């Protein structure tokens, strides 16, 4: 109190001085607004899925990882982005009492620029309640149709007619999993537990027949395929648990295995692929990137990655083995210069890829603590 009194005396002088000087004008009353569009520039979308509440899809700058906003679908949110990158779809589940009660499943369509729900389409309450993967939700036939993977656990695919805004068909896909949207036409191909691939087509009226089934393509017991592959032109490339690449042509009536490539031959250390979205392709340079881990064993196929392999798909040549940050999800941006995004732990990692240095991946940026990102998407 004595100190305070002494200060008061001193400060009276100071205050008087201050008042004698120029005093800025007071702040004018401000107006509360709502932003009308997200920050400009290319976007990277990252799903942080929840199983006991709202999920979040973060929108960050593809160049600088700056946070632009987020949209919030329901539980076990799946995601697909249209080619233009301006419309995002998510399929998710709502239980009446969040963790119990009647389930409602919906597709929400989001306008990216305004990060807003533009419409909601109710779909059968059968969506596969699983961590988000690209193969679980697709756009196909020039984005006329939206496909959603179901599992009850019997598997089927819900076909949504986007123009009509309603469900067109539910196609049973017993024993099969994941949808590979065809490059053209109303068709998807799926991977089946007997080692075959099956292609399904449908008509505008929702009619569909029996699938076109391939020969046995892989051995689910001996060398299982990871289900999230990379589109390489007319082909799809899938990695296997043992480190082989399976090249499947899904453009014809019946899916055909065109080649199997032993990616790890001659490499020491018992390396094998690992992760979920573990393979991605840069079309401009014809390079595949695959998440890998060493000392593989039965059951390690979803462990943290330790390396990112760059693989020349034309030359069938391993170009470079870069260190990874433990990611289990990769995504290539299709710019002229390859730029690679990885998600793992609670972070997103960005790598610059140097075509002049055998496509070495150099870690250049991190969004630490963004959440447990299960899948990313970006427009070309």
């Amino acid at each position, binding site marked *: 109190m004595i100190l305070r009194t002494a200060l*008061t005396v001193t400060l009276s002088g100071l205050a008087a001085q201050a008042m004698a000087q120029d005093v800025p*004008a007071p*702040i004018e009353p401000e107006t*509360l607004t*709502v*932003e009308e569009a997200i920050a400009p520039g290319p976007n990277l979308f990252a799903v942080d899925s929840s199983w006991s509440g709202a999920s979040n899809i973060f929108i960050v700058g593809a160049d600088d990882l700056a*946070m632009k*906003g987020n949209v919030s679908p329901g539980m076990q949110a799946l995601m697909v982005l249209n080619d233009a990158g301006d419309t995002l779809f998510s399929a998710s589940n709502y239980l009446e009492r969040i963790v119990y009660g009647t389930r409602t499943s919906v597709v929400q369509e989001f306008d990216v620029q*305004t990060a807003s729900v533009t419409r909601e389409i109710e779909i059968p309450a059968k969506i596969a309640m699983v961590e988000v993967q690209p193969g679980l939700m697709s756009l196909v036939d020039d984005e006329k149709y939206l496909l959603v993977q179901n599992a009850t656990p019997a598997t089927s695919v819900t076909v949504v007619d986007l123009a009509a805004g309603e469900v067109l068909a539910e196609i049973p896909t017993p024993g099969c999993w994941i949808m590979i949207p065809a490059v053209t036409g109303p068709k998807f191909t799926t991977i089946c537990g007997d080692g075959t691939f099956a292609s399904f087509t449908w008509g505008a009226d929702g009619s569909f027949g029996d699938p076109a089934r391939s020969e046995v393509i892989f051995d689910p017991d001996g060398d299982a395929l990871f289900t999230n592959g990379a589109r390489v032109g007319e082909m799809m490339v899938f990695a296997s648990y043992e480190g082989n690449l399976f090249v499947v042509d899904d453009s014809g009536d019946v899916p055909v295995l065109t080649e199997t490539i032993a990616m790890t031959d001659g490499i020491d250390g018992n390396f094998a692929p690992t992760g979920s979205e573990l393979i991605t392709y840069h079309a401009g340079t014809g390079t595949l990137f695959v998440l890998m881990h060493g000392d593989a064993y039965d059951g390690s196929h979803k462990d943290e990655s330790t390396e990112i392999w760059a693989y020349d798909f034309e030359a069938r040549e391993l170009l470079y083995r870069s260190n990874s940050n433990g990611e289990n999800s990769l995504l290539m941006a299709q710019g002229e210069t390859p730029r690679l995004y990885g998600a793992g732990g609670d972070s997103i990692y960005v790598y610059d890829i140097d075509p002049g240095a055998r496509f070495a991946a150099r870690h250049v940026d991190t969004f630490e603590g963004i959440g447990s990102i299960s899948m990313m998407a970006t427009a070309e």
Partner: protein
Amino acid sequence: MTKLIDTILNRLDRAAETGSRAQARSHGRRSFLARLGGTIVGAVAVTPILPFDRRAHAAGEGGDICAYWRNCALDGYLCEETGGSMTSCPVGSEASSVSWVGTCHNPEDERDYLVSYNDCCGKAMNNTATFCFRSERERPGYRMGLYNDINWCMANTDAQGYYCTVSVVVGQAT
């Protein structure tokens, strides 16, 4: 004049407290919302990810964005770090139709201002944003308009989910 002196005295009194305050602030009554890193993210963000153009107004106060003067009674995630600004809700969210109000002292012009803390509503919280918790002149719910523990999205028609908080100067305090 007395008011001005009081103000200066208050700021002097405060100087010594900054350290503990930053820590103490980490236990707000809405701060249980802040789960980044499992620990509560208080005034000092564990990993502050600020859009570069927003750092400016925190710079003068040691980089602690929550210490910025107009955040004196702010309890929530900063909208400016999730696509909004200090005075605007992020795109696609809805501003709360009601708010609590703080009276904050601006050291730049030595004036006290009324600050409306509106919540932005209808989206899930973005844990990457900084969570601030300060309670100058804050009062419990019997002074509802000064109460910062409650979800101010409560009066919105459709968007009652808490998202983030802005701080809008609505006038000078009298």
